[in-house]
């Protein structure tokens, strides 16, 4: 009897100590955190002696630049940068829209051309013409006539295919959107739904750009008849259903990024001799991402400096191997794997952001009725 009482006593003691320790550390952490986030500085120009300003850079979850990439910025300006993650690109824009004028951060990274119009209409940003503007991609700049945001990277959403699958069966891989409807490629395509996936949406827009508003739904009907598989997310499409990646699925044709083949090479171990996947260049839709100063930030000048840095060579050259996108700064150098394994289509498909904003809901409804039901 006494043995079990002792056991109980010690158990309670240990439990209590552990609890106390965790609470203590939590409180300690909590107080420093609250301090830093309610840090209010009024100085708009900073000298080495004043309290350091920390800018909050709001970005989507998959924003993964190199570890100390902002050190140089901090060194040059004395301003620290803290990254805050806010979900996927769509969520980011919605959250920013409803908090417009009273933002949760200072700079937003991650508005893309499909939600650009929505973001601008919601007056999320404070316009700024970056000092690097002459070096930035022209087509991208044309989308933002008033410099509400600055383009920071571009990418392509394209049809990717499993090279070995087609080689083994001695079938020529599909090269165009139209080809996907042919019986040769029946039951081979997997696509993420445009409703829940950003590359999925880009692909749908590609088909609208290619076949026009009157022809694109007929195209999808044909795809459907040809055994198209639609899944919820890109993750599932690429990593579960696609045969060319780690999931070893059944489908050798998938909608993914122009940078997926180099990614496969870089992450593969051991390194294969040739790229296991390739891109059908004629099916690509150009995606452009932008960053901008959030309207209502208390550190407008510093935020603008950050935009300059984000569009500057140092940061831009970090992008290909971390975010697997192309720098918007035309003077930035590309890494070897990118040059070797990825294809940059000359004339990718594109749609006007204003048109997208207007017609998007209708297009998605059409898609739902044509393909999903």
């Amino acid at each position: 009897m006494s043995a079990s009482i002792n056991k109980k006593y010690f158990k309670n003691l240990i439990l209590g100590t552990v609890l106390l320790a965790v609470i203590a550390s939590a409180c300690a952490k909590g107080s420093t955190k609250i301090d830093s986030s309610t840090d209010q500085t009024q100085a708009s120009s900073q000298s080495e002696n004043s309290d350091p300003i920390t800018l909050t850079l709001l970005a989507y979850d998959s924003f993964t630049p190199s570890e100390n990439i902002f050190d140089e910025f901090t060194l040059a300006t004395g301003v620290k940068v803290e990254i805050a993650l806010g979900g996927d690109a769509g969520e980011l824009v919605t959250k920013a829209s409803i908090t417009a004028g009273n933002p949760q951060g200072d700079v937003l990274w991650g508005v893309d051309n499909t939600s650009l119009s929505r973001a601008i209409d919601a007056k999320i940003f404070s316009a700024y013409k970056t000092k690097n503007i002459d070096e930035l991609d022209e087509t991208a700049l044309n989308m933002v006539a008033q410099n509400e945001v600055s383009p920071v990277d571009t990418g392509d959403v394209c049809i990717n295919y499993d090279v070995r699958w087609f080689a083994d069966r001695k079938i020529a891989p599909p090269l165009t959107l139209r080809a996907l409807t042919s019986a040769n490629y029946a039951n081979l395509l997997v696509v993420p739904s445009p409703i829940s996936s950003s590359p999925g949406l880009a692909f749908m827009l590609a088909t609208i750009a290619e076949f026009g508003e009157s022809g694109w739904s007929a195209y999808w009907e044909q795809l459907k008849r040809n055994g198209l598989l639609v899944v919820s997310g890109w993750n599932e499409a690429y990593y579960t259903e696609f045969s060319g990646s780690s999931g070893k699925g059944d489908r050798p044709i998938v909608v993914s990024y122009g940078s997926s083949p180099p990614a496969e090479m870089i992450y593969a171990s051991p390194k294969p001799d040739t790229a296991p996947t390739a891109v059908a260049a004629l099916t690509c839709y150009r995606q452009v991402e932008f960053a901008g100063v959030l309207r209502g930030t208390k550190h407008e000048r510093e935020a603008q400096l950050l935009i300059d840095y984000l569009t500057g060579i140092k940061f831009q050259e970090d992008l290909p191997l971390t975010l697997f996108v192309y720098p918007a700064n035309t003077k930035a150098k590309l890494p070897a794997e990118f040059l070797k394994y990825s294809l940059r289509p000359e004339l990718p498909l594109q749609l006007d952001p204003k048109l997208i904003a207007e017609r998007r809901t209708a297009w998605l409804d059409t898609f739902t009725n044509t393909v999903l039901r």
Partner: protein
Amino acid sequence: MITSYQSTSKWLAVVPVVAMLTFVVAPALNIFIISLNFDSFAILTAQTTRSVVWFTMWQAIISTIVVVFFAIPIAAVTANFDFFGRRALISLISVPFILPTVVVGVAFLEFLPTSIHQSASAIIIAHIYFNFGLVVRIISSRWQQINPDLDDVARTLGASRTRLFLTVTLPLLKNSLRSAGLLVFLMCFTSYGVVRILGGPARSTIETEIYFRAMQLGDVSGALILSILQLVVVGVLILLTTQFGTTKSAELSQMVFSRIRKPQTSGQIIFITSVASISASVVIMPLVSVVRRSILIGQKINFSIWHSIFTDEEIFKSLMTSLEYAVLTIIVSTTIGLFGACAVIYGSARYRFLNLLTALPVVVSAVTLGLGLIITFDVNPIDWRGAWLMMPIAHCLVAIPIVTRIISPTIRDLPNGLRDASQTLGATTWQMWRTIDLRIIKPALVSAAAIACAVSLGEFGASSFLVRRNNETLPLMISRLLGRPGEIIQAQAYAIATLLIVACVVIIGVVDHLGTEKH
């Protein structure tokens, strides 16, 4: 109304009411007022809306029915028979309920034949997976309150075992079947992760539609209207069933009988073995898949990920964050849940509204809550949105309804005679509460605390709307990693998921172990 605590309800109610008003009602009203736009009401009549509502309704109903059917044989086995691994089985089947969907979701797909990959069937099967353990526990514990002598009497009067079940057992389980059923229905009706991951792009429930409208289309107003619709449906259901659920439980005594006997016929042995092994494998298979994906990279076994898990600073930080939040959630939500439950039971009918109030976070969709939070707590000097505190607050909000519902029945069923006795022995109200009420409901408090812990560790809904800086929790990290390319990163996500699974298993084990010790 419990006269011993006549005036305490007033004070006890203050904390839960203030908490709910500040963090649920105010934000919800706020987002409604700011974003709601009357043109959006048109959405209610749209064809898509009607089919979405219909789908949500019928998949929830079917899921509930199937879950209950699946759970009853298992409850029969655990409530009536003693066999090797009985307690382990009960713990095991409780694990899925507290597992976050993001952990298991994709792994689940491996076990379903491709033909039902994106179908309602996949959703229903997943709902069974996540919910059957809960139903089994509720029914099994009620079953154990049926005096085994009743069974014996029925048999001497000629009833076969089947007849006994149908004419004696089932009627006596009616109430708990109803409340378990309601709980499962609510979970299935508002379920989000399961529908997104397993239903495929064509299946949409009200909850996923709300998310889609707000986040992908930017139509916050439309999303809010749908959210009101959901609130109405769910609210009505809760009201209806709690009204009818108050029939006397005088039928069943408060004691737990020892119904547990060794199986006597070979038929029983076969029944027990098959039920136990099927339910155990059902639970384990997806979990094994998660573990497997953490060590299988490019078709080869590779433990390097696990090594990096324990040395990676970022992951360690997330782990610490998750633990800190869990401790906070335990303390705050158990306290608020306790106060809320006590206020309702000790007080007059006036305090019944607290039932609905504490259930609000379940009823209000995660999107509404999340968006409401970020626009409400943004006014200086309370710009808390980035503050460290918001996320554990979100966790608490999600945990409170569950905690309240675990604690309530034990307070309600506490025989009042014990309180009377303590008063005649000289105890003050506070002493009485401490030595009688708190002491007797301690097992339930511990269970509730453990469940709150699990909820916090796995919380992914409302807290994903808050902006995260340096305070990412494990499930958020998993979701983020799963969305990124690279086998190694994917494997890392699964490794972290495995950690969460282990944590959930340990928690359930602790809860059950402590629970049975008390008896």
